[in-house]
């Protein structure tokens, strides 16, 4: 199967997405390990996550799967400054193959990594701290069964500040979790919510101080994993069937694609110029200087 990415991102992905399994407790862990980029997900990292979920689904020992991130943040979303073979030499546009590959991930397509999470037969749990932004919010956190968040986690569609339309606002699944008003607030302001607010809104199942987050999440997962596997499998099937009836996993085509191809506001164009000049971190820093920029306290990136 064709692997998308460049030489570096393909080589680094196994070390950037770590995996461990405790056969005794039945709990497996996927650990994002790209702390210098707030665990931004490259295309090979996303492919590896999908592959690890497939492995867990086939492993009878695994009953619960925790996804967490090392460093200051859980995950800042998809890597947006990445060459992963989307354009051939001298081409300005995506090829058909790479366009479909990209669109599949971005629109909750059946073969995308987000669907691997939402369709997993195992209990999936996000251990969330720091930033949980963009795809990490609408393609991981909202797609797992449980979110256990630190109180000061910063969760939301922060990408909407730069990518124009917040396509995830129209995703049925997200609206079913947060309620439509809150979903719109996150999408239309790009302001994050805290772990405590995520608990109030129904996104998070628990809110746990960051110092205890890993241990409590592990204990919670191990307790769930003690339930008989047949019972868990049955309940997961009921939930998947019910979500099907609710149409909650319908792919969202227009919003997310539009957000990538129609950017007309000067701020957005400036952002991308700054990305080219100084990377994403430099562009974020530049954006904060503008009056229309996101609130410095909330968009300042991770704590030092």
């Amino acid at each position: 199967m064709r692997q998308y990415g460049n030489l570096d991102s393909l080589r680094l992905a196994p070390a950037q997405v770590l995996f461990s399994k405790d056969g005794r407790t039945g709990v497996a862990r996927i650990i994002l390990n790209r702390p210098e980029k707030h665990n931004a997900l490259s295309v090979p990292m996303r492919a590896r996550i999908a592959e690890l979920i497939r492995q867990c689904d086939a492993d009878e020992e695994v009953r619960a799967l925790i996804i967490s991130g090392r460093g200051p943040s859980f995950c800042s979303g998809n890597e947006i400054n990445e060459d992963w073979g989307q354009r051939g030499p001298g081409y300005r546009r995506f090829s058909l193959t790479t366009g479909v590959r990209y669109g599949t991930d971005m629109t909750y397509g059946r073969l995308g990594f987000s669907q691997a999470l939402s369709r997993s037969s195992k209990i999936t749990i996000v251990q969330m701290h720091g930033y949980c932004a963009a795809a990490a919010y609408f393609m991981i956190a909202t797609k797992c069964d449980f979110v256990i968040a630190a109180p000061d986690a910063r969760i939301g569609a922060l990408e909407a500040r730069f990518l124009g339309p917040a396509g995830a606002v129209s995703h049925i699944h997200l609206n079913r979790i947060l309620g439509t008003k809150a979903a719109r607030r996150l999408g239309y302001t790009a302001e994050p919510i805290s772990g405590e607010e995520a608990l109030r809104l129904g996104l998070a199942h628990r809110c746990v101080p960051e110092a205890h987050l890993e241990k409590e999440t592990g204990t919670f997962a191990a307790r769930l994993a003690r339930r008989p596997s047949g019972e868990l499998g049955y309940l997961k099937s009921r939930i998947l069937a019910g979500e099907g009836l609710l149409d909650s996993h319908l792919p969202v085509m227009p919003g997310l694609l539009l957000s990538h191809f129609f950017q007309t506001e000067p701020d957005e164009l400036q952002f991308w110029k700054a990305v080219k000049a100084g990377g994403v971190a430099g562009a974020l820093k530049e954006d904060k200087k503008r009056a229309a920029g996101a609130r410095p306290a909330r968009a300042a990136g991770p704590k030092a």
Partner: protein
Amino acid sequence: MITTRTKDGIATITLSDCRLLTRSDVQEGRALADALQTAGDDDGVRAIVLLAQGRDFCPPVRPVRSQQASLPDIQSAYAGVTGVYQSLAYGRKVVVMGIQGRCTGAGSALALCADFVVMGSSARIQSPFSSVPEASFTLAALIMRLNRAKGWILSDEPMSALQAEAAGLANRVVPEGRLRREALGMARSAARMPLDGIAISRVMLETYLDSQGVGKEFDHAPFYRNALPQAGLPVEGRVSAKQSQPARGRK
């Protein structure tokens, strides 16, 4: 046993042992469905209160294999269009349920279908999905939002009355001693409404619920019931020498 008492336009249906419903007792299921439909068809009844005797509305069931009912009989009594759960979810009259103590299995499945739920302050409500295949996940998700419903089901953690109220499953939490009075009070509020308005609203609500997959999920209940033995879960009421293999109860 199920008793119905009607006074001042309010029909109060009282279950003597809700565990029979969790066990999919066909006679009990038919009796409750009949009581709900009879009250629904009675022009003198403007609202219904559903209560249960005892300290707990519906305590956990110890698995037994006492039933000799066929799957179609159970389907007809519980999941079918004239069964317990659809009679409640799609009935003509507003139903207020008063919950005290522990509420598990069928009690919780009923709570998902009832219009209003009043809980005693020490009541706790547990997910019905491991024991009641007719329990509606779509209703749970619509009532308390998707992740809360999933968390309730997968964690198997009972919700306290206050948690149920915060999640939207309970309308009111009251001291246990005032439960019956509050349930009747809510029913009276509904009874004061124009009956034609309520009836038409409920027909329109049915359209909404069906557009969200609620009706389809009831149609799928026999499939879920058939999946229970494979999951190693108790299947009371499932046994029929003619129509199915012997059920495997939880050991």
